[in-house]
């Protein structure tokens, strides 16, 4: 395996006048052409991590290395932000209000010859579909267009790493999907390595090859989206990546005794355990299963989510296709897939 492009080791960052700890003991690695997302609720330190990597925040402890060179460590910022060769896309885009689209995109091309810069600007505008808007000012653009200018501007100097700070969150919700897919296409076509910060799980899971879920300044769990969804290590990760049911049980090797009956386990365990079951791992049946009653019914057309209550449990069940049960119906709950044993 090749050397990682970016290495963050035991990073610690403090913020504000009170020097409160925003990021603690965070480690991550990023390889060339990989896309990684830092995912977590607001205030978990994900943006601070990104800013430290870019060189905007000084580091209290740990080390940030890029292409084998130390960028920041406890001794201070070793390489200033403008010499790091990293592109940054800001949450609010931070387009220069006094410059046109063309001038914004060309801002980082000062060191190139005029002819090269002009060519590169045209190329970036074509890539991001901004032809015809060259002379516009940022405030004359729609939110989606501004996002594309921000992307084109950051990519124009060919950065070896692109840092994206919630690049879709200030957009209209119905614009986010298309803009995200467009951004993915652009990044793939230039083979960019990208680190994305977001609080939106759909965005993170569809965008990234790997996820790092952060909580209160620390990395809670890292892995591919599929791994994290299927085998969350904690209730926090499980809930952050999707709907989850939690039940307590007595594990005896391959299975555990719970209020839902005997439940198979993904990994053998013993003793009192906390289990996570996704709504699609359960099903409602007319006969058999753990007896329960439907208390809620949320019909979505292609699927239906039932809230059911039984002796010692209350769970959500996802049914695809038919949704024959009504509120108040007596049903049985059956477990279709093995449960995840949570740590701690």
């Amino acid at each position, binding site marked *: 395996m090749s050397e990682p492009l970016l290495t963050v080791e035991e990073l610690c960052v403090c913020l504000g006048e009170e020097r409160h700890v925003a990021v603690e003991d965070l480690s991550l690695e990023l390889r060339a052409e990989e896309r990684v997302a830092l995912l977590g609720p607001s205030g978990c330190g994900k943006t601070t991590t990104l800013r430290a990597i*870019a*060189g*905007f925040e000084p580091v209290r402890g740990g080390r940030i290395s890029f292409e084998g060179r130390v960028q920041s460590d406890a001794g201070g910022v070793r390489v*200033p*932000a*403008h*010499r*790091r*060769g*990293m*592109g*940054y896309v*800001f*949450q*609010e*885009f*931070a*387009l*220069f*209000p*006094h410059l046109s689209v063309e001038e914004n995109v060309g*801002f*980082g091309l*000062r*060191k190139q010859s005029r002819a090269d810069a002009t060519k590169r600007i045209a190329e970036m505008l074509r890539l991001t579909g901004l032809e015809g808007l060259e002379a516009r*000012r*940022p*405030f*004359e653009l729609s*939110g989606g267009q*501004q996002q594309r200018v921000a992307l084109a*501007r*950051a990519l124009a*100097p060919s950065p070896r790493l692109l*840092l994206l700070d919630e690049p879709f969150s*200030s957009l209209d919700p119905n614009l986010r999907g298309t803009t995200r897919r467009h951004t993915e296409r652009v990044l793939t076509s230039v083979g960019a390595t990208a680190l994305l910060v977001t609080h939106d799980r759909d965005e993170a899971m569809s965008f990234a090859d790997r996820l790092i879920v952060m909580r209160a300044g620390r990395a809670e769990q890292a892995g591919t989206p599929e791994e994290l969804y299927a085998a969350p290590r904690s209730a926090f990760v499980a809930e952050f990546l999707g709907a989850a049911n939690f039940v307590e049980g007595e594990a005896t090797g391959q299975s555990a005794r719970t209020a839902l009956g005997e439940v198979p386990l993904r990994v053998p365990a013993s003793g009192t355990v906390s289990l996570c079951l996704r709504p699609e791992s359960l099903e409602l049946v007319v006969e058999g299963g753990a007896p329960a009653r439907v208390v809620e019914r949320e019909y979505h057309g292609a699927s239906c989510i039932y809230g059911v209550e039984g002796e010692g449990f209350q769970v959500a069940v996802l049914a695809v296709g038919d949704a024959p049960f009504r509120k108040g119906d007596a049903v049985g709950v059956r477990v279709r897939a093995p449960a995840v044993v949570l740590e701690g």
Partner: protein
Amino acid sequence: MGPLGSIARTALWVASCLVVAAACLPGFYLLLRAGEVDARAWEVFFGGRTLELLGSTLSLAFAVTLAATLIALPLAWLTTLSDLPGRRAFTVLLCLPLAVPSFIHGYALLAAFGDGGLLDGWGAPRPRIYGFWGATFALTFSTFPFSFLAFRAALLRQDGSLLEAARSLGASPFEAFARVTLPQLLQAFRASGLLVAFYVLSDFGAVSLLQYDTFSRAIYLQLEGAFDRSLAALWSLGLMALAVLALGGSWFFGGAEGPTHAGRASRRPRRAHLGGHAVWGFAAVLGTLAAGVGVPVGVIVLWLTRAADRWDFERFWTAAVNSLWISLLAALVTVLCTLPLAWLSARRASSPLVRVLERAAYASYALPPIVVALSLVSFGIRAAPFLYGTFVLLVAAHVVRFAPQALGASRGAFLQLSPRLTEAGNSLGGSGLDVARLVAWPLLRPGLVAGGALVFLTTMKELPATLLLAPIGFSTLATQIWSATAEGYFAEAALPSLLLIALSSASVAFTLHREDSAGVGATG
């Protein structure tokens, strides 16, 4: 649709048009007047004297704008982007010089350094305060807060992530400042610089006391001495053109900036750590305060104590009472006159006619006071001799000058009063009168009172129109300061000056408070 009948609506339109027409009258009247001036006056107008006045007026405007910028920019940076202790309090204090009218600066300079002033007779060398340098000093320290506030706003508005964006694109800190911060400050510089220039062009008090010949002073002398109103009218036209250019330019550049980015939250730039250099920061702030407020107040207090036995309380009392009632009257009439247009511009904002009327009303603000006064003098003598020398013309001059101030406040008040609220009052069984008394008036009152207070306090400081239009023998605090200073009776001007500064401080605090609640002056 509100409870207004069609007759009432027509009346509103007619009243609005009449008020705006009155506001534009001085400008139009001057144009008409210029059309009938005889050949001799034109000859004089195109002679060397006009060129001389143009040169002295513009060089004063240029010098003051430059000096105000040089003072304001570092102070704005200190109070926004550095960690200077006490920067919040300093921000408020640095706006206080606005409370010292330019003619009181002129008075203070004369009373300290002029013939018969505090330093006269000590044998000490006195700085030359008559003419260009004195006028530059007086006007710089009464106008630099406009630049200060504009630079502050520009620096605060600056999104810190813009600088970071520049850094991430390979720009060094210096390059980022030059390519991102400076271009944005340039806009504030153009807007505030032209505003300062406009105030210099309009100023009458300081230049006339310090005997520096600008258009304003020359027009006044022409009227008082030679009584040649033709030449004065032509000069007024020239001055009006300059003032319109300056204020129009200021509005153009002030409004030219679009929103800085799509979103809401912006990142504050990091504050610069001053450390030991904070001493220089304190020196800059305190030195400016000393020159802008300390000198005038100090001189006044010295004269008060020095001539305690020579106070003429009776004259002071008469002037104070005169100032009070004429200002109250002007405030009341001005607010009443702006009500119809304020209602229209709040409720019929999309109508093109309303927008034209609004622009025209605000444009009358660009008329220098001496121009308004001259135009009403000529108009009074020729068209309405029975009004000339009465309070009617004086109040009319105040209304024309200060209507834009009141219009803004009244319009804001009507915007607060949503038609849904009066409808709610009606639906709950209230009659038209009940709704007006119980819903509309309580909601409108603060805005109308605010507008009136602003006009009241500005009228208290008004000088040229009062000098030219007031009935003979009518003196106000401002005219008393002016005439006493002109004649060298510095002791007599001290008490009225102190009272005016105190009143103006109230108006500055009041304006700042309004801007603060509008989010302009807010700091973190």
